[in-house]
């Protein structure tokens, strides 16, 4: 069997950044396995701009952003195989990939999981109604339009205000389709404020906040969507139904980290993120298996994916050098109005990067990190919304004991 120091599963932004950083640290024997014919991951279909402001200080399109990493990886001589799908990872770190050359089996010393995420579907939400054609997930519609040159419809309704849905509202409009509504069940948008501004407001596309899609009608092709107002008690407001005629419904109702391979490797997942439970080195519950990017928790900006993966590389490097990493015993818990926190476990001996999201939007507030009743760190925020991930570093000196750490929002 082939052996490798590191196998990276997925050649998207996280995998590429991890590879380049590992190489820079002196790890030579790296293999990236990518299922698509080209590297770049989901960015290949993200032809809009706005990528790279944090990482490169300029605004790039998705393909331009990923090309910088692809070029770097190539220049560094890092090996990558494409059109190869990993179909299994065993707990003892044997990676099996399906390729046109045969079934590839590699014994890895360390594995980096960077498989990204997938979209939540209509079926998962169990939306009532008919089962016509013309219902697409936003990312699928984006792929059809930008990679396959296929136009999905003319009269569009978008369910959910996730970022891809917002981007697609603009993209479809620019291609001559009419987008009549974006319907969001929550009383606030799920996508970034800048996308609400640039993709909806700039094109006069109405956003219906607090509306739920209660029926899909029409067959063989979708003909209309019925939405109703959700009252404060969570129940539908009688008589509030609005009918939206359409020939296409685009769903942008959430992303789920793609962890089927992680599960086969025995990696423990976090119920809240649906990604792996990791420590401050981004190591999962299986020693030598690491995870970063959208497979770990869904990000809103690719820049943070790259930075996280670069951070991960340090842990992998240390693991390869020492043959193990010190076990992290201190749990990090999500407290008041916090959806989740990464990492979930720390040693208390290292500076750590904390990534978190709030559950509900709040105005002026403080993010407070506490241990043993003491405030270790507070970060003041003018506002915090679920759409925007919050990141900050906590210094090793801040930790006072081995008791659990809690992160919360104080209004």
């Amino acid at each position, binding site marked *: 069997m082939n052996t490798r120091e590191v196998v990276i599963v997925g050649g998207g932004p996280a995998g590429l950044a991890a590879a380049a950083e590992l190489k820079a640290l002196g790890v030579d024997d790296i293999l990236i396995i990518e*299922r698509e014919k080209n590297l770049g991951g989901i960015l290949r279909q993200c032809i809009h701009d706005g990528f790279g402001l944090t990482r490169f200080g300029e605004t790039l399109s998705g393909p331009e952003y990923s090309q910088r990493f692809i070029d770097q990886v190539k220049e560094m001589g890092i090996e990558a195989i494409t*059109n190869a*799908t990993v*179909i299994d990872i065993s707990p003892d770190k044997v990676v*099996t990939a*399906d*390729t*046109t*050359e*045969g*079934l590839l*089996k590699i014994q890895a010393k360390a594995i980096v999981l960077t498989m990204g995420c*997938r*979209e939540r*579907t*209509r*079926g*998962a*939400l*169990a*939306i*009532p*109604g*008919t*089962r*016509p*054609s*013309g219902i697409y*997930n936003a*990312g*699928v519609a984006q*792929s*059809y*339009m930008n*990679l*396959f*040159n*296929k*136009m*999905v*419809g*003319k009269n569009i309704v978008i369910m959910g205000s996730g970022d891809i849905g917002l981007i697609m509202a603009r993209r479809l409009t620019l*291609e*001559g389709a009419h987008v009549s509504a974006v319907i969001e069940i929550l009383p606030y948008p799920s996508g970034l404020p800048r996308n609400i501004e640039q993709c909806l407001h700039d094109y006069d596309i109405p956003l219906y906040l607090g509306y739920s899609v*209660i029926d899909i009608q029409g*067959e*063989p*092709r979708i003909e209309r969507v019925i939405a109703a107002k959700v009252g404060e008690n969570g129940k539908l407001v009688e008589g509030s139904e609005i009918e939206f005629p359409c*020939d296409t419904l685009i769903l942008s109702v959430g992303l789920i980290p793609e962890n*089927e391979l992680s599960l086969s490797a025995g990696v423990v997942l976090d119920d809240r993120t649906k990604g792996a439970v990791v420590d401050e080195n981004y190591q999962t519950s299986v020693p030598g298996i690491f995870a970063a990017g959208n497979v770990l928790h869904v990000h809103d900006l690719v820049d943070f994916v790259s930075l996280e993966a670069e951070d991960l590389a340090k842990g992998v490097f240390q693991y390869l050098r020492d043959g193990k990493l010190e076990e992290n015993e201190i749990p990090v818990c999500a407290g008041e109005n916090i959806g989740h926190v990464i990492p979930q476990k720390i040693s208390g001996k290292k500076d750590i990067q904390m990534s978190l999201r709030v559950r509900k939007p709040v105005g002026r507030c403080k993010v407070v990190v506490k241990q043993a009743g003491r405030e270790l760190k507070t970060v003041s925020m003018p506002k915090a919304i679920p759409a925007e991930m919050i990141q900050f570093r906590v210094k090793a000196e801040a930790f006072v004991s081995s008791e659990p750490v809690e992160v919360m929002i104080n209004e």
Partner: protein
Amino acid sequence: MENLYDVVVVGGGVVGSAVARELSRYQLKICVLEKELDVCNGVSGRNTGLLHSGILSGDQPVRTECCIEGNAEFDQVAKELDVPFKRCGKLIVGFGEEEKQCLQQLYQHGLECGIPGIRMIDADEIKAIEPNADGDTGIYVPTAGILCPYTYTIALAENAAQNGVEYHFDQKVTAISRTPGGEYEIQTENGMWRSRWVVNCAGLFAYQISVMLGFEAYVPKRVKGEYEILDKKAGKFLSVPIYPAPGKAGDCDIHITPTVDGNILVGPTLEDVDETIDYSATQEKIDQLMEQGARLFPRHVKREYFIRNYAGIFPYVADPGIQERVDFQIQAREDIPHAVNVVGISTPGLTSALPIARRVVEKVKEQEELRPNEAFNPVRKGIVRFAEQTDEEKMRLIEEDPDYGEIYCRCECVTKAEIKQAVHNILGVSTVSGIKYRTRATMGRCQGGYCETRLTAMIEKELQQDVKDILLNQKGAYMFVGKVK
């Protein structure tokens, strides 16, 4: 004359395809007229996928007899037609004294019908058979099994086609007449077909064809059932179907059934419906599935596992006189020569399809001597599923055809080679769902998020279709309005 057949079978469901297959054992020119664009788009593809034992067939002798016969032979059938099948047995469970009595009655009925191996069991034995099932009393039915209803129907149809049967899709029958010369003229929305024989296997619409042929005017008594499909992650927790004790009408309400592919089906809800064909899912029934499903299969019926919902309609018919549901009807009449009328085939139609088909052949033989088709081959091979092979076999497949080395559907691990074979299926079906039913692509938890773009690209390329002509599943179900400017 063109379009002159010995036999026209109306309907390409499991019964129509079984009839076509059984008739292809004889020297006959046969075609199947199907109104949809693929087989099993109606009742045959929208059910629980259970190989029934016959215990739930009530006091209807033909229904019970066909079911027992079909059950007994299915290991052999599954082998011949390369259809995945598991004889896993079944639990019918009850809570409380009333349901216990109901189950005891059912058990007695089962013994009288000669259902093999059934036995009454208590709570401990229920847990011993399936630790995740609940109930105080139960009947264990060892001969029941699970199969994939569309894989089976497709297998029958493909075997029929291999043996010379023609399938014509998009052929909704609108009128049938008989010429003075004794030939049938079958008018469809898209043509005229002539035949010496007509066999009515039109499922939900059999009662209409029955009238066109001059048989009884049965009254449709349709029952709609909604289902929820659960993730394979839930499937790991169930090895046998769990049925509740039957209600007053003898129907079993929401049950929990593992599928041969490893998912779980929750359903069906049961609701009397009129003649409108409406497969919509409703919020009320989705909630009901959750609630009642959790009673039989605690802890595992949860939203996190939802993959998709679907609905089916049971084509019960009533006698026009007494207005009660009739037994399976397999009829021939002297005053309507060369016609066989198959009506009222609801559950367990899947289990009974071949026994029904043999009875149809007998009806034909009563009026005409049939000469055997020496070339008939009962064996059909399905598309080899990469995901189910050993590593050695996978390597061999890739070596033989590198397309096995490209995963198109990641959730179900379906390769390009399988998709390509499905696109070039023998029946000439070209819809996206046609590929889905033949390979399982798009059936996983991402519901085609990854592979649907590849499937449509394959249809476009391999079948030289314009993007506007690519259909999801039926006429008018277009996927694209054209190319991006």
